[in-house]
């Protein structure tokens, strides 16, 4: 922990990771190939810094789970390298495993025969956590996610949402540094998902070395939780940055919406001729006029408003129009039908 260089090492790093699946009836032993192969990841390179909640966004089948499986030592990459804390996931498996934990949503996993506490204790044992510390942690974790009363209940009797929260505790009982959450809130009700999100945030605040890699189909969740996101499409990273970067990346121009009083049609023409104004559109709404402006840069809004005032117009309200993450996402990954065609193109028949 005290090694000075360690601070510069990304928590998670992938270099040109590629993963090809051979579907049923796939590879025959002589090297001759039969059946379909699917390229799930096609040269993924990512750097995720310590202390970040990093979101991986992508449609069904984009390759998110595949990447998480590779990073959690469940699956070998076909080529390329992946590192956790600078350690190779295929060569330094045990060291990697000491640092990571994973939760996948949307599955009914758990030893039904055990109680919640027993199950968590067992996992703590697999990590070498002394029993006493384990029980202390279990109490803290369960009450933090609102499962305090279920500690001694059998796992089979838990609802989906309870099971999912137990699974989060299971991942955290070993005090991992790097946590992988694959759609952690899928199938949870509003309150349960919020409690998961809140707890993840709280957990991150407790220690600056912690890192989360999260996948989700809920854009608001990514927007709310993530410092950085990457969008993956057909095994390619197609965009990466902060959520604001992604939204802004969409927008060539700064867009504003203004509520106007005392509007004259001539104003529109005047605005269009001003420097820095790319587009101006006015629309009459009852006694008001709604004006939409596209400016070359944000700063042009001040002189533009001044000129409207000078001409005798009156601005009642001003709002910057931000694209949502969802819009950004849809723009990046294209529409479903188009993507379907591409997906078919990506599957190689060998």
């Amino acid at each position: 922990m005290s090694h000075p260089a360690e601070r510069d090492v990304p928590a998670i790093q992938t270099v040109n990771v590629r993963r090809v699946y051979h579907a049923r009836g796939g590879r025959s032993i002589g090297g001759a190939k039969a059946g379909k192969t699917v390229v799930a990841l096609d040269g993924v390179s990512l750097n995720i810094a310590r202390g970040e909640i990093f979101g991986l966004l992508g449609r069904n089948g984009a390759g998110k789970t595949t990447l998480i499986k590779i990073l959690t030592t469940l699956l070998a990459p076909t080529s390329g390298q992946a590192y956790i804390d600078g350690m190779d996931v295929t060569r330094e498996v045990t060291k990697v495993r000491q640092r990571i934990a994973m939760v996948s949503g949307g599955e009914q996993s758990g030893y039904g025969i055990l109680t919640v506490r027993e199950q968590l204790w067992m996992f703590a044992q697999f990590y070498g956590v002394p029993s006493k510390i384990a029980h202390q942690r279990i109490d803290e974790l369960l009450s933090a996610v609102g499962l305090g009363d279920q500690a001694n209940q059998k796992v089979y009797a838990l609802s989906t949402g309870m099971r999912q929260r137990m699974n989060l505790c299971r991942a955290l009982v070993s005090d991992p540094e790097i946590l992988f959450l694959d759609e952690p809130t899928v199938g949870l009700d509003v309150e349960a998902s919020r409690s998961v999100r809140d707890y993840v945030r709280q957990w991150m605040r407790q220690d600056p070395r912690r890192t989360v890699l999260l996948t989700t189909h809920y854009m608001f969740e990514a927007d709310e939780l993530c410092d950085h996101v990457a969008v993956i499409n057909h095994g390619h990273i197609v965009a990466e940055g902060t959520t604001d970067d992604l939204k802004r990346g969409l927008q060539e121009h700064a867009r504003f919406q203004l509520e106007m009083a005392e509007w004259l049609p001539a104003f529109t023409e005047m605005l269009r001729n001003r420097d820095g104004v790319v587009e101006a559109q006015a629309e009459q709404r009852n006694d008001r006029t709604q004006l939409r402006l596209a400016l070359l840069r944000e700063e042009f809004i001040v002189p533009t408003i001044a000129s409207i005032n000078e001409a005798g117009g009156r601005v009642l309200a001003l709002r910057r129009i931000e694209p949502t993450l969802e819009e950004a996402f849809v723009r990046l990954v294209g529409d479903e039908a188009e993507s379907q065609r591409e997906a078919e193109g990506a599957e190689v028949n060998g």
Partner: protein
Amino acid sequence: MIETTSAGGLRERIAASRTWQTLRAATWLEWQARGNWTNPILYGIYLIVRPMTTSLVLVLMYWLVSGAHAHGGLFGFLIAGAAAWTFVDQIVAGVPQAVLADREEYAMLKYVYITPARFLVVLIGRALPRMLVAFISFTVTLAFGVAILGVPVDVRMINYPLLLLALVLGFVGITALGIMLAGLALVLKRGAWQMPQAVTGALYLVSGAIFPVAVLPVWLRDISLGVPLTYWLELTRRALLGSRIGETFPIASTGAILGWLALTTVILSAVSVIVFRICDYFARERGQIDRTTGY
């Protein structure tokens, strides 16, 4: 320098403690999974009745086939074999099925797999309670044979040191087999659930569990003498019934049999670990650790 050494020492201590904790936790898990502990009486009956019915069926079959020739000595051979075989059933067939259940029923294999716990240790832990269950069945079956069928076991004449040695070596070999099949079950695309039963079925015929190795065709006998289970069964019989029972066995000397048992057990264990590692490699390569699709 001193700091590095002490940190390394600490890491080793943690690793050693983790191995022990893993063994304990896996044993405990299997112990919970083994019995329906909410209904211990029912489980107790199951533990006792099942081996008894198995041996009864065998004895009846022999009776029908050999008629008047059925006698205590022959029953001794049969009952000892059937009693000992519960170890194979419990572990060689049971451990792979426990792994498959982890993957497909509980969807937990992947989570166990990505812990730093060594998977081999987890499997050994899961074999231990099964050994206890098998030991209970073993004892019950023998007692039943002695009391009802007149099997000539004299409790005072049992060669206990030999029995213990046979059981310990047998347990090592049987666990090694269970681990190997668990590895194979992970990578099999079809029939993973049936494979362990099929293998134990074949071993049942080959290793002299119900009829003497001597009656096998020569080529099968050669296979038989490569399997530690053959020596293990023979030694268990000799320890329980005296060496006269082994008159038909191709090797006369008990010491030589013990030597063969030790040798084949060591070889089997090494092969098992290698096969398991290879399967583990392929399972990771192909993404089979968390495959939950049915077979």
